[in-house]
């Protein structure tokens, strides 16, 4: 099926833009500057800022889930559970532990603590993944998600089913930008390393990968811990953007939302995850006036996408801008050296 001309043009523009050698420096400095001025001088109205905050949080969630579902080829539906752990830990710290005058300064540590808490829980969830794969691991993560929700509902100290409130609105645009860039960068680094290649080989053929000296247990632990760490970070940011959380926010439906963004953007693609999260979040907002029909239209669009592009927008493809430069250089240097030795025998 030939792609429509508009889409082709869009891809071309996108590629030319991201491959430019000053793309990353300009994007990072410019992005941080725009985010800071936008939140300090409020030249963007608060509603738009909130949407951008959600876009950032969803990018973190999507990229981190893609590590397990796309790159490792497992099917985890427990991502909302890790998010809940991060949200509750970060909120408890800023509301009850940190002195309220210091909450603003200590905010990054609260977020970090949420991420570490989620990572520890992720470590526990990684253990059943040694023995089970596919559908069975999906059931394990589903159970995990339900356990987190019911545990939170039954602890009165964190508000039980009523939830937790009293957080200040600490999640500002610059912070979201910072954490989003950090999570994308770290996960990209992981994928293009020895351990990342191990993650990919587990997806392709776990037994062969074990026989090719890949320590599959170590790789699984790293992938799940890193993924849940960033889910926890996203949870903390989410809690301080909404200023209110309750256990029902982190049920299986939230996990499904993240899954949709992963498969919409395309599995095993960081660029795809970002596109998926941006499109899904913004589309949901644009369609808000449709009220309840939004929930009819969105799934319908997904069905159409799966028919015409079953691997998602960027499935198994990556924009050049996300590939590490060092690796490309090493190969280039090796080739030119070989050509030189071949030419002069």
């Amino acid at each position, binding site marked *: 099926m030939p792609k429509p001309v508009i889409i082709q043009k869009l891809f071309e523009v996108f590629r030319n833009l991201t491959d430019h050698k000053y793309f990353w420096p300009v994007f990072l400095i410019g992005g941080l500057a725009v985010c800071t001025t936008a939140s300090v001088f409020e030249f963007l109205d608060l509603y738009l800022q909130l949407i951008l905050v959600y876009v950032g949080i969803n990018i973190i969630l999507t990229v981190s889930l893609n590590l397990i579902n796309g790159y490792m080829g497992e099917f985890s539906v427990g991502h909302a559970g890790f998010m809940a752990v991060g949200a509750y830990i970060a909120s408890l710290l800023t509301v009850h532990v940190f002195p309220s005058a210091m909450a603003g300064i200590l905010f990054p540590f609260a977020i970090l603590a949420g991420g570490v808490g989620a990572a520890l829980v992720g470590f526990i969830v990684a253990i059943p993944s040694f023995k089970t794969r596919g559908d069975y691991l999906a059931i394990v993560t589903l159970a995990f998600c339900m356990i987190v929700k019911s545990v939170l509902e039954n602890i009165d100290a964190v508000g039980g089913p009523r939830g937790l409130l009293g957080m200040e609105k600490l999640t500002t645009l610059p912070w979201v930008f910072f954490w989003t860039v950090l999570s994308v960068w*770290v996960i990209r*680094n*992981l994928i293009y*390393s*020895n*351990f*990342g*290649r*191990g993650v*990919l*080989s587990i*997806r*392709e*053929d776990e*037994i*062969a*990968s*074990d*026989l*090719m*000296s*890949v*320590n*599959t*247990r170590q790789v699984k632990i*790293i992938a799940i811990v*890193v993924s849940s760490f960033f889910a926890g970070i996203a949870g903390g940011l989410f809690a301080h953007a909404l200023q209110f959380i309750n256990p029902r926010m982190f049920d299986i439906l939230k996990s499904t939302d993240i899954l949709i963004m992963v498969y919409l953007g395309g599995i095993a693609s960081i660029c795809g995850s970002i596109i998926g999260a941006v499109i899904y979040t913004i589309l949901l907002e644009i369609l808000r006036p449709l009220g309840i029909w939004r929930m009819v239209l969105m799934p319908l669009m997904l069905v159409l996408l799966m028919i015409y592009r079953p691997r998602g927008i960027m499935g*198994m493809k990556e924009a050049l801008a996300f590939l*590490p430069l*060092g*690796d490309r250089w*090493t*190969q280039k240097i*090796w080739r030119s050296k*070989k050509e030189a030795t071949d030419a002069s025998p």
Partner: protein
Amino acid sequence: MPLLEISGLTHRFAGLCAVSDCNFSIEPQELVGIIGPNGAGKTTIFNLITGVYRASEGSIKLNGRELVGLTPNAITRLGIARTFQNIRLFKELSVLDNVRIAHYGQIAYTPAEALLHIGRFRAEERRITNLALDLLAVFKLDGLADEKAKNLPYGLQRRLEIARALATNPRLLLLDEPAAGMNPNEIIQMMDFISWIRRTFSVTIILIEHQMRLVMGICERLIVLDFGATIAAGLPAEIQSNAKVLEAYLGEEVVL
């Protein structure tokens, strides 16, 4: 001292005895063939040596070190690599990555360095990439380094699988039916190829094969299995006239 020593090896699949009291040993630098009728337990022995299955009884020793109970990746790191009867490459990954993955055990940076791309990361990645490309060049696959493994023709996939196994730096290479699905011409090429690998990489090789032409042509010693037990072992010429072997193969045409 033998490189590999197998004694009293027994493996049962819920009652079915796939390997029963199997004994043999392999000296360094040997090229040994394992033959036997279908279902004789040849591939099971490979799976036991490499740790895919855990032996019910008996012991497998590499240079005197017990392997039973170790995980496959630990055994590979001790110096045993293998290929598969039905090619098991990482199909969606590039040829280069297929080989780089096999270097997993030789990388000296920690997960933290990998996450931040700091410290030893860059130097190590450069080293591994160069090693992998050098190996691919030896196998004349370097021109296809960026190609996905699934896009290679069958013969090159077999070659890549052997290259990938050698990337783990093995002392003992197990080849499971390297000539499966090849025509007589390709079998002769494969024979030369296997002897060349042995010379170039100075590895000990055990191969399972049904193609008698190949087995008789290059193996120095043969081990014949039937119903999971060794029924004969010796030089190819001795095996050809062994009454027990002929009995095991009765009904099958043996092209010698």
